[in-house]
C-alpha cells in the first residue's frame, strides 16, 4: 500500500485522533471521582491548616479519610455570609474551646489564580493563621507564597486599625519591624506579592459586614 498518498495520510490521521480522543475521554471519566475527592480533601486540609490543625501528616495511611475526620471534629459550623459572590465562613472550635473563623480569599496571580484561607480570632481583627496556594506561579519565586515560612508572617497581624479596615500589605524590601499591617514580600516575586496584597484587600473587604456583625453582637 502507498503510505504516502493523500487519502491514506488523511484517513490515518483521522483514525488516530478518534482512537486517542476515546482513550483520553475514558481515562478522564474513570479517574474523575477520585481526583475530585482529592481536590475536596486538599481544600479541607488547607482550611484546617489555616487554623494550625492537622499539621502533621507523616504516618497517616489514608490521607483523605484522616482529613475528613479532622474536618468533622474541628469545623463545627460552616455557612456562606453572602451568595453573590460566595463568601464561605468555617468556624473551627479549637482544643482549648476558643473559636476561630476561617474565611476564603482568592484572586489573580501572575500566571493564574491564587487563593488562600485566613483564620481570624473572635475579635475579627487578629489573624490566627493563614495558608496560601496557587495554580502556577513561578517556582522558587512567586510560588513561595505557598510555603509555611511566608504564611507564618501573617500570624498576629491585624486587619483593622481603630475600626478602620486596612488589610495587610505585602511590602517589597521588607516590612518595618512592629508594623501590624504588613509582611515581607518575596524577592523576585513582586507581581505575585502585589497580587496577593490586592487579593487580601478585595476578599477581606467583602467580609466586612460579617466582621462587623460579629463584633457588635
Amino acid at each position: 500500500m502507498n503510505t504516502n498518498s493523500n487519502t491514506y495520510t488523511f484517513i490515518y490521521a483521522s483514525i488516530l485522533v478518534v482512537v486517542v480522543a476515546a482513550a483520553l475521554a475514558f481515562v478522564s471519566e474513570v479517574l474523575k471521582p477520585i481526583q475530585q475527592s482529592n481536590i475536596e480533601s486538599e481544600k479541607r486540609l488547607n482550611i484546617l491548616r489555616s487554623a494550625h490543625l492537622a499539621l502533621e501528616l507523616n504516618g497517616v495511611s489514608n490521607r483523605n479519610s484522616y482529613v475528613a475526620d479532622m474536618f468533622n471534629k474541628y469545623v463545627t459550623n460552616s455557612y456562606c455570609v453572602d451568595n453573590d459572590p460566595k463568601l464561605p465562613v468555617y468556624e473551627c472550635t479549637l482544643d482549648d474551646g476558643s473559636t476561630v473563623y476561617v474565611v476564603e480569599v482568592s484572586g489573580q496571580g501572575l500566571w493564574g489564580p491564587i487563593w488562600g484561607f485566613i483564620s481570624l480570632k473572635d475579635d475579627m481583627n487578629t489573624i490566627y493563621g493563614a495558608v496560601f496556594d496557587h495554580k502556577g506561579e513561578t517556582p522558587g519565586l512567586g510560588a513561595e507564597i505557598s510555603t509555611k515560612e511566608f504564611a507564618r508572617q501573617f500570624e498576629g497581624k491585624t486587619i483593622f486599625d481603630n475600626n478602620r479596615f486596612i488589610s495587610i500589605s505585602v511590602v517589597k524590601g521588607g516590612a518595618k519591624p512592629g508594623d501590624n499591617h504588613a509582611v515581607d514580600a518575596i524577592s523576585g516575586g513582586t507581581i505575585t506579592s502585589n497580587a496577593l496584597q490586592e487579593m487580601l484587600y478585595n476578599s477581606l473587604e467583602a467580609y466586612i459586614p460579617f466582621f462587623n456583625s460579629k463584633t457588635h453582637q
Partner: protein
Amino acid sequence: MFKKIFLEPLFKGNPITVLVLGICSALAVTVKLEPALVMALSVIIVTGFSSLILSFLRNTIPNRIRIIVQLVVVATLVIIVDQILRAYAYNVSKQLSVFVGLIITNCIIMGRIEAFALGNKPWPSFVDGLTNGAGYGLILVAVAFIRELLGSGTLLGVQIIPQSWYMTNGGFYENNGLIILPPMALIILGIVIWIQRSISKGLIEKQ
C-alpha cells in the same frame, strides 16, 4: 544485542550525563527523593510505551506526518500518566506540577523514537525505551538522594541525620540550604559527569 540495548543507556550512553538530554526537568524535580522517584517512573513508562506503540505502527505511519503521529502518541501517554498521578498520588503530582506535562518535550523520548523505535521491532524498542528512561531516572534519583540528604537531612521524608547533631539542639551540624536551590543540582550533575568520565576514559573528547 539485548545486553547492549539494556546496559548502554544506563551508563555509557546515559541520556543525561552523556547525551545531555532532559536536563531541565532533572534540575527541577530533584530537591526531594519522592518526586524524583515518581518522575523517573513516569518517564520510564512514557519512553517504554511510546517506543513500543510507535514501533508497532512504524510501517504504517505516513512519512509526511511522522513527527505529528509521534507527538500524539507521546502526548496521550503523558496525559494518561498525569491523570493517574492526580488520582492516586495527588500530593506528589502537585509537587511535580508542570513537569509531568513537560515530559512531552523531553528530548530523550522523541530522540529514542526517531533513532531506534522507527527502525526496530517492537520488543527491542520497548526495552530501549525502558532503559533510556531508567538511565534518566537513575541520575535523577542519584542527584535527589544527595540533595535531600544534605539539604533537608531526610530521605523520602524520614529523618536520617540524628536530631541531636543539629546546632539548634546543641550539636555541630546544619542542613546545607544551598543544596536545595536549583544551581546546586547543576553542580551535582557536573560532579556526576566528572566521576563517570574519570571511570570510562572513552567518553573524554580527544584534544
